[in-house]
């Protein structure tokens, strides 16, 4: 039985990791190795030139744009999300309705908000700007941050906050001096997830980007949609785009379920 269990698990591991092997191998192939039948499974020589080449063709700009936008989106989500989460968790402001409304934003088909936002952004000149993309990412990142942090704050013992209140601390002091440090793990989880969600997004990115702002997923899509498909360079760019997600999966294993379900499953 053990053999069967481990055998099937290994088969699943191979199945889920095979595409990564394939793009890693592809990113190291030289030009001639892409169009052979049968395909080349292991490149004869490791050709690293696809990496600098893809960075030179726009992936470096994509990398920096993605980083700046994801970082700013994370900062805004935490700055606005933490106070809101505290108020909802401890003061029941807006009761169930407000919490449910915030949750339901996650269910929206993005296209429903993208379309009108695009018209509005074009009118005020926010298309193809960092601000436009950062703003539009709050549509999904802010509700996420509020829900995750609400869960973490609800798990904190109330006694410390109550003792501080008896000692005469003002509500905002309690929030800043007690709740924020105690909820630090929650803040880290919220920060990393909001960063990754923005980093991985394509739907908003492809519509709100332009010639000035090109997040990495858009660069990859442009590479892949061109007349001449640069298999090696695209694979190299894709591997660069995966790296932050790998960091997330490794460091946050304990909190992955919680993060991926918006805190619904702890």
């Amino acid at each position, binding site marked *: 039985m053990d053999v069967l269990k481990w055998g099937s698990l290994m088969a699943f591991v191979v199945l889920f990791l095979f595409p990564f092997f394939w793009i890693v191998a592809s990113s190291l192939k030289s030009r001639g190795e892409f169009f052979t039948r049968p*395909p080349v499974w292991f490149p004869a020589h490791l050709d690293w030139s696809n990496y600098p080449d893809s960075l030179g063709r726009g992936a470096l700009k994509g990398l920096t744009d993605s980083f700046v936008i994801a970082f700013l989106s994370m900062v805004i989500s935490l700055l606005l999300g933490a106070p809101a989460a505290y108020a909802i968790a401890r*003061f029941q402001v807006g009761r169930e309705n407000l919490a449910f409304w915030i949750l339901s934003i996650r269910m929206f088909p993005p296209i429903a908000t993208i*379309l009108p936002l695009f018209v509005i952004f074009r009118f005020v000149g926010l298309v193809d700007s960092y601000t436009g993309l950062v703003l539009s990412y709050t549509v999904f990142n802010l509700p996420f941050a509020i829900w995750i942090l609400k869960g973490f704050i609800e798990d904190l013992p109330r006694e410390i906050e109550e003792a501080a209140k008896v000692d005469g601390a003002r509500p905002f002091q309690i929030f800043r001096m007690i709740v924020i440090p105690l909820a630090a793990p929650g803040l880290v989880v919220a920060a990393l997830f909001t960063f990754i969600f923005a980093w991985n997004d394509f739907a908003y990115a492809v519509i709100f980007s332009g010639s000035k702002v090109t997040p990495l997923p858009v660069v990859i899509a442009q590479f892949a949609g061109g007349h001449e498909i640069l298999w090696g360079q695209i694979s190299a760019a894709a591997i660069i*785009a*995966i790296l932050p997600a790998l960091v997330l999966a490794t460091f946050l294993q304990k909190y992955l379920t919680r993060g*991926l*379900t918006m805190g619904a499953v702890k």
Partner: protein
Amino acid sequence: MLGKQEKNFARLMVLPAVGLLFLVTIAPLLFSLGVSFTNLQFGSPQPLRWNGLDNYLNLLTKDARFLNALWRTLLLVGAGVVAQTVLGYVIASLLFRISRGRTILLSAILIPSVISQVVAGWQGRMIFNASYGPLNDILARCGIKGPAWLASQQTALTSIFLTDTWQWTPFLALIILAALQSQPQDIVEAARLDGAHGWSMFRFVTVPLILPVTGIGILLRGVDLFKTFDLVFILTQGGPGNSSETLTFFTYVQGFKFFNPSYASAMSFIQLILVTIAAKTFLAFIRRQRSV
């Protein structure tokens, strides 16, 4: 009870977040709702006017391309949810039954679910490439002539389904594993002592116990499958023909390729209504199961 001062403090704390969310969701949606009742089309010679429910009626009664996209999307949601839940359960129960190495195996399997869909789509493009891809190479070595996958009307949607299932089955496995691990052991033991085993154990003990948590995963997956856009964009652009066009992709085409925002707005509202009804029905179903 909260004092007045505390109430005001709480309101002040949620105000920035609620204000911003209002600006980026409710306000655009209201604007879009208004536009959906007009004939607004960029570059059209016709003057702008209200046309009531015309866009909605056209979509639901006349537009075959829309109805086909709707049907295709529902198919994708149904097939995706079933396949990912069943496979996710198989993986989760295998992981649940091993005593060592669970964490490392789970980390490895989970990588697809944390990467960008654009990367998953790019991987699909390479894997499914009919002439130079590894999938048809493997099939050929087994003596099977593989289909054209992305380039064939018969298999384009299937390729999208396979890519999505590859990417998100690990996510459901993660959730179902969490559900399995949180089963109260006394109930499981009591059922075993009462003679439950095999199918009866699964159907009458395991399923009810893991359903509330698993249900959340299924709901999130269903909602996201209904919004499938990135994979269509990268893998097929809706083609060949319109054979793999989903609702959100068709909405994108109407809005950003045909510059027809009024029609696209009506379409996105129909999607919003469908998602809301489906999600609420599903949640009610889960709640009823839990109380039985």
